[in-house]
């Protein structure tokens, strides 16, 4: 059969560029913005929305914004007694600049503000230690974040040199003990009692006494050392929490809330999934109670009722009371997030761990919690974000957090102008946004990094 070839192309046809209407900006726009009448209308509508929202903002912030000035005249129109032309409407960033220090530190004494700065640096270091994966010396970094950082910041911010007091015997004057000595004596007594109980239990159950007693002693020695550091006079001037304010208070409350809520949340979540009916129902009651009431009532409770709950003469710092309220509240939310992770762990993991002969806490620590917490990292971060935003509520009970400090600056007639409030609030919104948005980005990053195995 003769091969009859009529036409065979022996070179590739020269590639033509895609039609102009489907490539480049025009093509992209046709594809994404103007494909069909309905979408075209939507696009035009969207453009109008952008114009009517974004433009005034840009105008307010940049075009009309005032960046320098000494008092209200630069931020008021001629009719209001200032230098701006009538009809002017712009951000008064000069006012924000003038108050920036107060927004950051509150009324923390000027000459002591370096302590806040150092605390902030420590916070950043601690965050790096916790958040950055694959850090060398991870163990030591975590130890720094969990122990060195909080102790150092407490001492730095308050000035340290706490008066310790006995809690069992010292106060009643028994054995004539008082002050720091009474505290350490009491601590030693408690340590001995607990260690003794542990020893007895270990003996009775036939486990290795050393493995029980040594950790107990270590914990108490740790407490003792930390307390000793608190009691030492480093020569720092004491700074009452009453003068703390601004971003400092916001950070103190959110960082404390976050650090406290995680361990408590894990405990509560374990309690809620416990086989023991009493522990389970207590956990359920605790969690549902705090989740069922608004934070503001919790803060009212901690600021008004907490002093009544404690024996007369225990006076609580106002900030500490708010911290307790926030910690209780966020622990309950954290517990529910952690529970979600625990429920997602297949039964086989529990059974496997038990088959290996691990104890409950070993199983939790080494098998279940690492997997469960990894699963719920996005939930944990969003709880943190919620907590960070909720710290603003403390201004209602009279603490001056970042927002509270900004609000209280409005009372000063020096900068009073119609745009003052809007400028202050925009600045606040921007600052909060930076924090929360970066947290949510971190959460997405971690989610992707840990996206191993569980999802197909």
């Amino acid at each position, binding site marked *: 059969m003769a091969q009859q070839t009529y036409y065979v192309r022996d070179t590739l046809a020269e590639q033509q560029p895609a039609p102009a209407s489907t490539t480049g900006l025009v093509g992209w726009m046709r594809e*994404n*913005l103007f*494909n069909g009448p309905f*979408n075209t209308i*939507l*696009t035009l509508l*969207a*453009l109008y*929305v*952008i114009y009517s929202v974004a433009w005034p903002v840009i105008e307010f912030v940049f075009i009309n914004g005032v960046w320098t000035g000494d008092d209200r005249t630069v931020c008021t129109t001629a009719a209001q007694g200032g230098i701006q032309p009538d009809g002017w409407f712009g951000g008064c960033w000069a006012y924000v600049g003038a108050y920036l220090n107060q927004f950051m530190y509150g009324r923390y004494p000027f000459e002591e503000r370096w302590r806040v700065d150092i605390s902030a640096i420590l916070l950043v270091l601690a965050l790096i230690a916790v958040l950055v994966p694959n850090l060398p010396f991870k163990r030591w970094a975590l130890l720094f974040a969990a122990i060195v950082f909080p102790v150092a910041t407490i001492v730095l911010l308050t000035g340290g040199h706490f008066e310790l007091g006995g809690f069992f015997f010292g106060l009643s004057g028994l054995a004539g003990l008082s002050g720091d000595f009474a505290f350490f004596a009491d601590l030693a007594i408690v340590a001995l009692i607990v260690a003794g109980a542990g020893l007895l*239990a270990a003996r*009775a*159950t*036939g486990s290795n006494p050393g493995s029980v007693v040594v950790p107990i002693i270590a914990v108490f020695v740790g407490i003792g050392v930390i307390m000793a550091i608190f009691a030492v006079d480093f020569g720092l001037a004491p700074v009452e929490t009453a003068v703390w304010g601004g971003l400092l208070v916001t950070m103190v409350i959110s960082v404390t809330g976050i650090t406290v809520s995680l361990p408590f949340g894990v405990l509560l979540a374990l309690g809620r999934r416990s*086989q*023991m*009916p*009493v*522990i389970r129902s*207590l956990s359920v009651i605790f969690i*549902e*109670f705090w*989740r*069922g*009431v*608004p*934070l*503001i*009532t919790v803060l*009212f*409770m901690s600021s*008004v*009722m907490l*002093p*009544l*709950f*404690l*024996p*007369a003469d225990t006076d609580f710092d106002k900030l500490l009371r708010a911290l307790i309220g926030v910690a209780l509240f966020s622990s309950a939310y954290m517990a529910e997030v952690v529970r979600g992770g625990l429920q997602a762990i297949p039964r086989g993991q529990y059974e496997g761990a038990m088959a290996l002969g691990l104890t409950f806490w070993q199983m939790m620590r080494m098998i279940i919690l690492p997997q469960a917490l990894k699963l719920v990292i996005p939930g944990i971060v969003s709880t943190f*974000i919620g907590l960070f*935003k*909720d*710290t*603003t*509520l403390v*201004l*209602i009970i009279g603490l001056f957090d970042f*927002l509270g400090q900004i*609000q209280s600056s409005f009372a000063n007639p020096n900068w009073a102008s*119609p745009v003052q*409030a*809007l400028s202050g*609030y925009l600045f*606040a*919104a921007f600052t*909060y*946004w930076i924090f*929360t*948005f970066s947290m*949510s980005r971190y959460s997405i990053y971690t989610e992707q990094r840990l996206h191993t195995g569980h999802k197909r």
Partner: protein
Amino acid sequence: MTDSSQNGGVERTFFLNDPKVRAIIYQVVMVAIVVWAGWSIVDNTATNLNERGIPFGFDFLTAPSGFGINQSLIPYSESSTYGDVYWVGLINTLLVAVIGVFFATILGFLIGIARLSHNWLIARIATVYIEIIRNVPLLLQLFVWYFAVLRLLPAKREALDLGPIGLLNIAGFYAPKPIFGANTWMVGVAILIAIALGIGIRFWARRRQMATGQQFPIGWTFIGLLIVLPLIAYFISGDPITFEYPELARFGPQGGIRVIPEFIGLLLALTLYTAAFIAEIVRAGIMAVSHGQTEAAHALGLRNGPTLRLVIVPQAMRVIIPPLTSQYLNLTKNSSLAVAIAYPDLVSTFTGTALNQTGRAVEIILMTMLTYLAISLLTSAFMNWYNKRVALVER
């Protein structure tokens, strides 16, 4: 079980090694701690109250309050009791919560769908909205609306004329107040008839579809009925509804229905804030329905509309409902921020003013917390029931 730890015939089991015994010990210790802590709190409180000469009891609820409240749906005056203050506050809370939930749901669904839109610009706008609103504290947004934005409205003695909608100024929104004529009942009856007809038609249409496979546009028919019938009744009865329009007077607009600015500010903030969260929930819900479902529906010959209505939405709703409920609860609890802008809700009037005036901190805070707790528990109970109803019945 307990015998399993016997080893080589040697009895090594101490009773503490028995998990059951341990569980009992743990629980007894736990109960002891809780009881002791609870008792010491109660005891301390009683001692403290006693020492400081503060009485405890709920008798103050029947005492006259003596202060005014600027928004009340039930009759309230200065001679009403603190008990009435509680109810006024609770109703105001529920009012803002219900209206807020309504608008937040609509807005949230719109934005959630917009974020999935094929229109790049629309999707971007929705994303930017969500990322900004979700990441700024609600209290700050509330302040912005109330102290910054509402400040830009005309002063109290002037007003922005919105024509037939009403007047708007810094002291609130003044809507025309409908005054019902003698024959208004006819309109009401017409609405009832329309609803009854709608139910009847739905019944009939479903039977027809079962029998013949033909569909009937129930929704449109129902909406048509609901509009046409009352309109006919309205005109037959001879224009029974007139409107009282607000007018400017010495201290600002008078007449009409007044909505206080605190309500507007709170509603705006709650709605916009919650809508951003609802939008994310809706998006996640829709994305949770696999694309195969759409393809299968299309393969069966369903067009886009019915695919969405009959296939996607019912499945997405199952994912959406539980987190949506918790957003509704959050909105209700967040309405307590009203205290910061003087909207007379439960926290502001009762836990605020009433507490300050009576000094009965323990009783009042307890009542407030239990009220919110009851609201959440009731909602959760309802939602659990609903969830069980719609839950996927798996093999």
